[in-house]
C-alpha cells in the first residue's frame, strides 16, 4: 500500500469552509462545522496565510491508536486511513487529548472519537477546494513538491538579495 495523506497549504486557503461543510454532510448527513473532520482555523481577517487547515495526517506510528486501550483505532489496509471503530470506542477522549495536531475530535452527537477516514480513499474535501489548499498525495510525490516549494522561496530570497 502506497502511503498517502492530505497535504495542507495554509497560504492557499481562502477560508471558504466548503471542505468542512462537505465533510460533515457526507459523514453525518448534515452541514456542520463542528462535526467536520477537517477544520479551517482562522486568524485575524481570515485571508490566505491567515487560515490554518487542520486535519489528521494519518501518522506512520499513530499516537491516537497507541493510547486507545479499547483498540478502537486501526489502520484500514486498503486506504491507509486510521479509522475509528465506533462500536469499540467508549468515548474516553484520550486520543483527542493525545493528538498534537488536533486531528482527532469528539463527535458530540454520537459520543465517540471522530477523525478523517479519507472518505474510503477518495477524499471529498479535496474535490471542493478550487485553490488546491488540500491535496491528497503519495508521500514520495509530496517530498518533491516540498522541495519545489523550498526552491521557490529560496529563488525569491535570491531575487531580493541580488536584484
Amino acid at each position, binding site marked *: 500500500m502506497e502511503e498517502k495523506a492530505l497535504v495542507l497549504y495554509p497560504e492557499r486557503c481562502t477560508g471558504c469552509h466548503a471542505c468542512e461543510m462537505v465533510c460533515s454532510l457526507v459523514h453525518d448527513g448534515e452541514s456542520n462545522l*463542528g462535526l467536520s473532520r477537517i477544520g479551517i482555523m*482562522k486568524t485575524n481577517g481570515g485571508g490566505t496565510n*491567515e487560515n490554518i487547515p487542520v486535519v489528521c495526517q494519518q501518522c506512520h506510528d499513530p499516537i491516537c491508536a497507541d493510547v486507545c486501550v479499547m483498540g478502537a483505532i486501526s489502520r484500514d489496509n486498503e486506504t491507509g486511513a486510521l479509522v475509528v471503530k465506533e462500536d469499540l470506542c467508549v468515548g474516553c477522549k484520550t486520543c483527542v487529548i493525545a493528538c498534537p495536531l488536533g486531528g482527532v475530535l469528539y463527535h458530540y452527537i454520537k459520543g465517540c472519537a471522530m477523525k478523517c477516514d479519507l472518505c474510503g480513499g477518495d477524499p471529498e474535501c479535496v474535490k471542493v477546494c478550487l485553490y488546491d489548499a488540500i491535496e491528497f498525495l503519495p508521500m514520495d510525490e509530496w517530498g518533491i513538491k516540498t522541495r519545489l516549494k523550498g526552491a521557490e522561496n529560496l529563488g525569491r530570497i535570491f531575487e531580493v538579495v541580488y536584484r
Partner: protein
Amino acid sequence: MKVGGYAGQILTIDLSKEEVIKEPLDLDMARKFLGGFGLNCKLAWERLDPEVDPYSPKNMIFMGMGPMLGTPAPVSNKCSVVSKWPSTGTISPGTAGGDFGINVKLSGYDEVIITGKAKHPVYVKINGDDVAICNAGDLWGKDSHETTDILWEKHGRQYSVIPIGTAGECLVNTTICMVDKCASWGKGGLPAIMGSKNLKAFLAFGNKGVKVADPKRLMERTKLILERFKSRPDYLKLMIDLGTMDGFAGWADIHGMSSENYAGRFPTEEAYRIYSPQYYLKNIKAGRVSDPTCPIGCKDHVKIQKGEYAGTEAWVSSFYGRVVHMAARCQVGSYEKNVKAQEFFQRTGLCVHSYTALIDWAVELYQRGILTKEDTGGVELKHDFDTTMYLAEQADKHEGLGGILSQGYNKAIEDIGRGCEKYAVQVKGMEPLYDPRINRLTGPEFNQVVNPRGAHAPQGCITLYMSRDLPAERYRPWLEDRGVPKEALKRIFPQAGYFNIARMTPYGEDWVAFMNSVGMGCLRGRVDDFFKGEDWSDVYSSVTGFETSLAELREATRRSYNIYKALNVRLGFSRKDDVFPDRWFEPLETEDRGTLVLSDYFGTPLSRKDCEKLLDDYYDERGWDIETGIPTEKTLIDSGLEDVARDLKKRGLLPKRASNK
C-alpha cells in the same frame, strides 16, 4: 418528509425587555417568500410600524439567513438585513457575505429580529440554543477592529463578529457594519440603528448543523457546478491574483468612474499611473479572502508596504469599488493614502460608498462659494487626502461640517440649505454608484433610479456586466436560461439589435432578489457566468426537499419584490421619488474622452422625456401603475398578496384605476 435548509426558528431579541423569544418558522410562509430578503420583507410588513422613526426603540432589524446558507452549495453565503434606514427613510435591504450568516444558521435560526433599546451598551451573542445579551460597557468608544479583536480574544476566533464603529455610536448614518473586519453590511446606517439601540456588536458561532434533504443530489449538482470553474484554471488564477481588481481596466479605461461630483471622469492615464494592477500586486496585496463556499475568493487582504503608512492593513470586500471612490471622488493621490483612508473609514464604520460622495459634493459646494471657511472651520476644501481625512474625522465625532454631511443627503440638504440641493446628485437620499453618461444607461444605472432603497445598483441590477461593445442578442440567452417568459422576451427585444433596458431590468432585479432570498452570493458575472438557471431549482429542491421549479422560484421572488415595493409605498414613496438626477442630463466634459451625454446602451442620446418613457415601460413590465409607480391591485392579488392589497386600499394608496395597457 425530511425538510432541509430551513432551520425552523425565528429568534427575536427585545433589548428593552432583555427578552429572547424563539418561535417556529412557518414553513408555508418560508416557501412563499423563500427566506433572507423575501422573508425579511414579509416579516417587516407584518411586524414593523411603517411610521416608526429609524432611531426609535420600536424600529426593528430583520436579519434573514436564506435556506442555502450553511450548506456546501456553491456561493451559499449571503445574509440579508432589512430595517428602516435613517439615511433615506426607506424600508429596504442590505446584504453581506462573511461567516456571520452561516453561523447564525448553524445555530438553528432562519431569522433574527432585533427590537427595543438596551439600557446600557450591550452585545448579542448567539451560540446555538444559547443566546445572551452581554454587557458591552468596556467596548463603547472602541473602533470596529478593536471591538472585533477584544471579542475574539474573549470568546474565541471561531465567533463571527459584527461590531459598530465609533461613528455608529454617535448615530452617523452614512455608515456600514464590518463582518469579521472584512465583509460589509447595511449601507445607509445599520451601525447608527444599532447605536440607537445601544447595541455594540453581534457575535455568532453555530454548532447545530443544517439538515440537507437530499445530500447526494446536492453533492452531484455542487460537483457539476465546480467542474465548470475547474475547467477555467486561467480564470481561477486571475481571480486569486487580482480579486475584484480584475475589473481595473473596466473602470479605468473601458468605462471610467465619475469624479468632480458627477461633473467629470477620472482620467484613464491617471488611473494607470497610480492604481495599476502591477502596483497593487507589488505594494498593496497581502492575501485573498473568500466568503463561505465561494469558488471565487474575491475579497482582499491589503497591507501597505512602504512609506508613511507602511504596515497599515485592512480586509476589504469589493476592494476595487472602494479604491475607485477614494481615487476618483476624493482624489487622495496615492494608492497608500487610498488604503489608509479606507482603513480609517472601516475602523470608524464610515461607508466608503456613501461618504466619499458627500465629500465630493461638499468640495463642489465650497468651490461654488455655497460653503465657506465659516462652515468648514477655516479649512479650504479640496479633492485631496487631507480634506477627506478632515471631513471623515469630523464625521466620526459627528461634529462640524463633516458631522452635517455624515447624516446623508436628505438631512444635510436641510441643514446646509442655500440651494445646495441643486448640486446633490442623489436618488431618495442615496448616492449613485454609476454615471450613465460614462457607462450608458444599462441595468445598474437604470436600477439606481427605480430601486426602492435609493440609488443603489448592486441590489437589483442584471447580473451580467453590460459591456457596451457586445451585441444586444448577447443578453438573450441569460434571460432565457433564468426562466424569463417568452412574452416578456418579445417586449424586451422588440426589434433586432435592440433591447429595452427598462423592460429588462425587472428580471435582473428579481434575480438578485432571488439570490439574496435563498442566500447565494452573486458578484454578477464573476460567479453568475458559471451557473445555469436549472442549477438553482435543483439546489433549492435538494437542500429543502420542496421540489420547486425555476418558474416557481421566480414567482416567489416577484412576490417578495412586490411586498418590498409595498413596504415603501406605505411610507408614501411613488413615481415622484424615482427621479433621474438633473446632472445626468447635462453634458459631461472629460479630459480624455471628449463630451459624453446620457445615452442608451446603443449610444442613442436620451432626453428626460425619453427617460420618463422608460419609467413607464418599467412600471408596466412590473405590473405597477404607470402614473404612480405603485403595484396595482391585480398585480398584488396575482402574486398572492391579498392582505397587502387590502391594506394599501384601506390607506387609499392603491392606484384608482389600472393605467396599464
